[in-house]
Structures are given as structure tokens and as C-alpha cells.
């Protein structure tokens, strides 16, 4: 399907910083870091900082600056700031807040415009469908390769296994498309923060960066403050999947290769030593210390590719048959552990 061309206003460029048109507009202005020292420049830098600040406070900024040029230019400037700060967590949080902001704006847009925006910016393959499948009415189909990477979660109604997929086309509503945009914007923002920062920047700009950095450090410290012993033993903070694997390993059950990998990488990442982990596997029916040591050291990044591995994320644990739980707000076993240490409690239920 060809999307109908839609005339974009300057306000649109301000709302949707990932648009090709916005990027072209920014390029045409030809702003450099050196330009940021004058009065308008300061305004841009302040707004860029404000954007990041609202992300730190988990607020979604829905207002637009009166001067739309300032609004538009504040986005690329905020990305440069994040490249200076180089903090993955902050970048992710910023990406999330920008994503939510875009979803907020899209909610008030005409369908034609939403389609134009996604098809032109992300090259998604979308076509009209308007059919009923059971009780569900769909407006469009999107090619699964363009759909799957942007679903908010790999379960329930978002999972393609629950969609009437035909020839690779997934039926969706316009609301679902708007929600996919949120994830796409997140990924877009993160991808634009990967490169190292420019070698130099004006003093005023650097000061602003340091100011934000300090605020972020404070916010992080506050987040981590209650990291006192809310649990008596580290095992109490384990997610249910790892607790089950640990119990099975200690009981001398014959764990699959993936299960061993998951448990060993988890334990390494929460600070257990190679020797401690080998002791845990000692009960395994086919235990051989030399092989166990080689493999655990490999996972620890002491051998071979020198990559330190992390355990599978929850979706992969589930696909590998190692997870039969649903943990609230948790996407990775290590996240569960950290949340437990911080809050002392994570809700989860065992699925039938």
C-alpha cells in the first residue's frame, strides 16, 4: 500500500523528531555545537536538558516550546548530551519517555497521517485489510518482520501466535500501529546515542551536560538507596526460574545444557565465583570438574571469545521451557534479582 502524501506542518516536525522531514529540516539549518553559545543557543540547550530531566523524573513532556525551531533543535542536542553522559540506563529512560511522547501526540492524529508517518519513517510494509476475524475487527495488515521487533511484550495478544497470520501479514488495528511506533521511536533514539561524543564542545554546553549528569547520579543514588538487606539470603532474591534450577542442580538432577548455561551465567552475574558455581554443579550425574570449570570460565568471559555472558531474558527462558512463571514488570532474571534487592518484593505467579 502506498501511503497518501500528507502535508506536514512545522508543529508536526516538532512532535515527531524521527521523521525524515524533521531530520532534513535540522540539517538545512546546519546548527553546530559552537552555535549553542548565543542566546537562542542557550534556549535550545536548556530545552534539551529539560527533555532529559523529564525522562529522569519519568515524566512525559507533552507541551511544545513557543518557538518551534527551539523545540525541533532541542532533540538532536539532547542526543549529543546523552552521548557525552554515556549512561545506558539514562539513554534507555530517555528513549522510553520520547517514545511515550510520540504515542501521546499520535493519539490525536488522523489515520492517514499516522500511516504516512510510519510508512515513510520506518519503511513498514502495511496494507489495508478491514476484516473481521471472530470478534476482532482489524483495519490493516503489517508484515511480520516489521511487526515483531516493535511489540511492547512478547506475550498475550501481541504475540503473533495469537494473531490470524496469513502469508506473513499480521492483522492490526490503527491503535496497535501507534503502539508499535512507541517501541520504534525508543529503538531509534537508542541507536542514535551509540556513537562516541564529539571531541570538543563549548564550555557552556559541557557545564549543562555535567549538571544533568549530576542530577542523574543523584536520582540513581536515590533509586539505589533502599538497597539494604531486605532479604536474608541471596537465594531469597532469586527469580523463581533460577531458584528452581538451583534446587534441581543441588539435587543432582541432570540439567539440560541451556539450563546449566542459564544458571551459571546468572550466578556469575550476581557475583558468585567460578569455584562456588562448580561446587553447585558437583552433584550433577555427569559431573567432571575439568569440563565444568572450562565451561563456567567460558561463560565468565575468561576463555575463548572473552565475552562475559548474561542469562537468557525471560522470553527466551520461556521458549526454552525453563520458565513457567509470570513476574510483574520483569523482562530479565537479573532484573528480578535487582528489584528484589531494592524493594524486597516482586509479584509473580506460576502459570498453569
Amino acid at each position: 500500500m502506498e501511503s497518501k502524501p500528507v502535508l506536514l506542518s512545522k508543529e508536526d516536525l516538532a512532535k515527531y523528531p524521527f521523521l525524515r522531514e524533521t531530520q532534513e529540516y535540522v540539517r538545512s539549518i546546519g546548527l553546530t555545537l559552537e552555535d549553542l553559545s548565543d542566546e537562542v543557543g542557550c534556549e535550545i540547550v536548556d530545552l534539551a536538558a529539560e527533555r532529559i530531566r523529564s525522562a529522569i523524573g519519568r515524566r512525559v513532556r507533552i507541551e511544545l516550546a513557543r518557538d518551534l525551531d527551539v523545540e525541533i533543535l532541542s532533540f538532536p542536542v539532547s542526543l549529543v548530551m546523552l552521548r557525552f553522559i554515556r549512561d545506558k540506563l539514562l539513554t534507555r529512560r530517555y528513549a522510553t519517555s520520547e517514545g511515550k511522547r510520540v504515542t501521546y501526540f499520535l493519539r490525536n492524529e488522523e489515520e492517514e497521517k499516522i500511516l504516512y508517518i510510519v510508512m515513510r519513517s520506518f519503511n513498514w510494509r502495511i496494507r489495508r485489510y478491514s476484516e473481521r476475524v471472530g470478534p476482532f475487527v482489524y483495519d490493516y495488515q503489517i508484515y511480520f518482520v516489521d511487526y515483531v521487533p516493535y511489540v511492547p511484550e512478547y506475550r498475550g495478544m501481541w504475540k503473533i501466535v495469537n494473531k490470524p497470520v496469513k502469508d506473513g501479514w499480521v492483522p492490526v488495528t490503527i491503535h496497535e500501529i501507534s503502539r508499535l511506533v512507541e517501541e520504534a521511536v525508543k529503538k531509534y533514539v537508542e541507536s542514535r546515542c551509540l556513537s562516541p561524543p564529539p571531541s570538543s564542545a563549548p564550555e557552556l554546553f559541557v557545564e549543562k551536560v555535567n549538571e544533568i549528569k549530576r542530577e542523574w547520579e543523584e536520582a540513581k543514588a536515590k533509586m539505589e538507596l533502599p538497597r539494604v538487606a531486605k532479604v536474608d539470603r541471596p537465594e531469597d532474591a532469586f527469580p523463581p526460574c533460577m531458584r528452581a534450577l538451583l534446587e534441581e542442580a543441588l539435587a543432582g538432577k541432570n540439567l539440560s545444557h541451556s539450563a546449566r548455561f542459564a544458571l551459571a551465567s546468572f550466578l556469575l552475574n550476581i557475583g558468585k565465583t567460578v569455584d562456588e558455581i562448580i561446587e553447585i554443579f558437583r552433584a550433577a550425574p555427569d559431573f567432571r570438574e575439568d569440563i565444568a570449570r572450562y565451561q563456567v570460565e567460558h561463560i565468565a568471559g575468561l576463555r575463548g571469545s572473552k565475552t562475559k555472558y548474561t542469562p537468557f531474558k525471560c522470553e527466551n527462558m520461556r521458549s526454552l521451557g525453563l520458565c513457567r512463571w509470570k513476574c510483574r514488570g520483569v523482562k530479565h532474571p537479573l532484573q528480578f534479582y535487582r528489584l528484589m534487592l531494592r524493594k524486597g518484593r516482586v509479584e509473580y505467579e506460576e502459570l498453569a
Partner: protein
Amino acid sequence: MKNSPDRNLQFMMKAFRWYYQRYSERIDAPSSLENREFGFTFFRGKGMIRHVSFRDAEEFRKYLVEKVPQHAFYSSAYYRFPSAETMDEKEWLGADLIFDIDVDHIDTPCKVYHDSWLCPKCGASGRGAISACPHCGNENIKRKTWVCNTCLSVARDEVIKLIDFLLNDFGFSQDELYVTFSGHRGFHVHVESEAVRSMDQDLRREISDYVRGVGLVPEAFTVQASPRVFKVSVDPEMPGWHGRIARYLLFWLLAADEAEVSRVINPRKLRYFDEMKKALEKTGDLSVVTFSRREISKILEIIAEKEGVKIDERVTIDIKRLIRLPGSLHGKTGLQVYKISVDELENKDVIRASAVLGDRKVRVMLKNPPEKVLDRIFPPDFEGVMELPLYLVAYLIGNGAEIKVLDALSSVFY
């Protein structure tokens, strides 16, 4: 009877050399050859030689003829520098989408005729496939596994299911995919297309979950009519799992016997269930069917088990895996890793086609062969001299049967 390990090894080496010398011209090099990594093991070697790469098909074939590998693998991934030693240096460019269907993961009726196990802990032994020793519970069992045409036809049915998913649900075209018999206990399905190359692990996992039927939820296939009643909302014409579930439900509701039904339905509701069945018989409309949430979850589980494909999901999710090289011989069986087109799949005799070592008769002394192996049946507890086709001798030797070749090797391989 005493095996002669060295003589048996020599037999295998000669057989493999004979094959590669005659047939290497017919072995197709994988697509984008210069971007693939190869790995080999050798009859007298230890471990795998990895990070091998070839500039062109000629160099590739020459290697096979000169080195005569016992096992040959290539990467489903494409690399800029396939012979570099670390993943970072290799520079991953993309990967084909691979599915592995292996009878090890499927319950087949024939395993009792050819598989056996021994518990090293308590000394118990028996036939068939088990996961733990029935006497002492030990899970570290020594297994002896063989393959026969029954296993392969069960695995083939899984491949046919998978192909349906790939063509109809995912819209791949037939010429983007091909199937290989792995030369041992299963099949590989390769999808080579621009659309799959750059897929990340998340996308591959979702495809894997889809074909396995992992993650089906009741609310996608029913509507809640009242707090406890869920009305079926799928019909057989619908695409995807919706149609599969509808077709299975129709079959199940109309044909299932009481025992099967009471696995799902609360026995107290059986009378109500019969009424529902009658209404369904009259109208053929599934929307007269209602379940409780627990029932529909249970049914989805059963449908996923029956209609989902039994693949090894790790292979599909992995984007840096070595996979058996089509056209090479499997080192444990002497059977060819045989490429089959989708059209051939249903009718091709896979064992005949992959028995490329041929039927030349070889005299052997044999003790206790499995009762059913490849396309052959042996009498129980057989011990004695027999004339067997060469391909079968190679398989028996490769997979560790008690066997001794009586003919002079020079007369077998001339």
C-alpha cells in the same frame, strides 16, 4: 566376537574416501560460499577444526577429496571474515533461518525395537527410550540409539507440518526453502532469503514459538459470554492458529471418545457436553461451543502439542550455529546429508536416496544387531555371518554395532 576397531575404522575411512573421490563434483557448495565458516572432524583427529573458509567451489571440493572429513558442517551465518577466530573479528552479516527436527525429541513407536539403554549406576538395562533409570532414578543413562524408516516417517510428518507454517502462515515461497535429511535421526529445514538474513534472535524466537504453538492464550480464540463461560470464536476458514484450532476442535468434538473428552471436560458436565455436540453436528457452527477458562486452556495445550511442530528451538534461535553440510556423509552412519525439495518430501524414500555408499554385498560377522534399522529387519538376538549391502555395513560400524568385516577391504573398495 571381538570387534576390530582399527579395521572397522579403516573400512569407514576407505568408504568415505571412495565417496568423496567419486561424488565431490556433485556436492553443491553452500550459497555465498566465501562468507561461510566451515567446521570438520576427522577419523583419526581429535576435536573439531573450525574457522575454515573457502574462496570458491573448486577449493571447497578439493578439501573434501583430500581431507576426507568424518563430519562436515558449515555456518548458517554469513561473515565478512569467516576464518577469523573470534566472533567479533568474524563480523556477522546475517544468517539463514534453520529448523531442526530430530527423532530424539519425538516419541516414536519403533524405539523399543532399536534403542536401548544402560544405567552405569545400578547396572540396569532395557529397551526403548527413557529419560531416567526406572530402577534407581539416575538420569545419566548410557543410550544406544538407531534410526529406522518408521522414525524417519514420523519426523517427516513434522517437516510437512512445518512447511505448511512456512509457506502459508509466513508466506515464504517454495524456492526459498529446502529440506535435508541430516544423515542420521532427522531433518533440517533451511530458509534462505533476503527477509530472514538480518532477523535477530527475538524475531527467530517468535517464529520458533509460532510453529511450536507456544504462548497461545484463550482470549485470542474465544469471547467471554459471561464471567465463567467462554464462547469459541474461531472457524476453520480463518488463517493461522485460528483456523488450526477450529479444525482441530471440530475433529475433536465430533470424533473424540469419552476418555479423551474427560481429560478436558469436568465429568459432571458430560451431559451438557453431549448436547453441545448435537448442536454442533446439526449446524457445524463452532460458536455453539462454550468452555470454562480452565477447559479452553487445557484444549489449547493439547492442540499446541498435536498441531505444533517439534523442533529443537535452540537451533532456530541461534544465529551462529554450524549445521551439517548437504552432500557430505554423516560420520556415524555413512549416509549422505541429502537435499530434498519440498515436492519430493512426501514420496521420496529418504534412506534409499541417502545410501550413496551403495548396495555392493559385504560379508560380515554380526552379533546382536538392533531388530529394526534403516530399511532392514534383523531376527532377534542374531549372531552369525551375513551378506549385507555396503551402506548398511557402514551404518552398523559407524553407530557402534558388534560387527566384523570378513571380506578383504581391497576387494570391497577397488
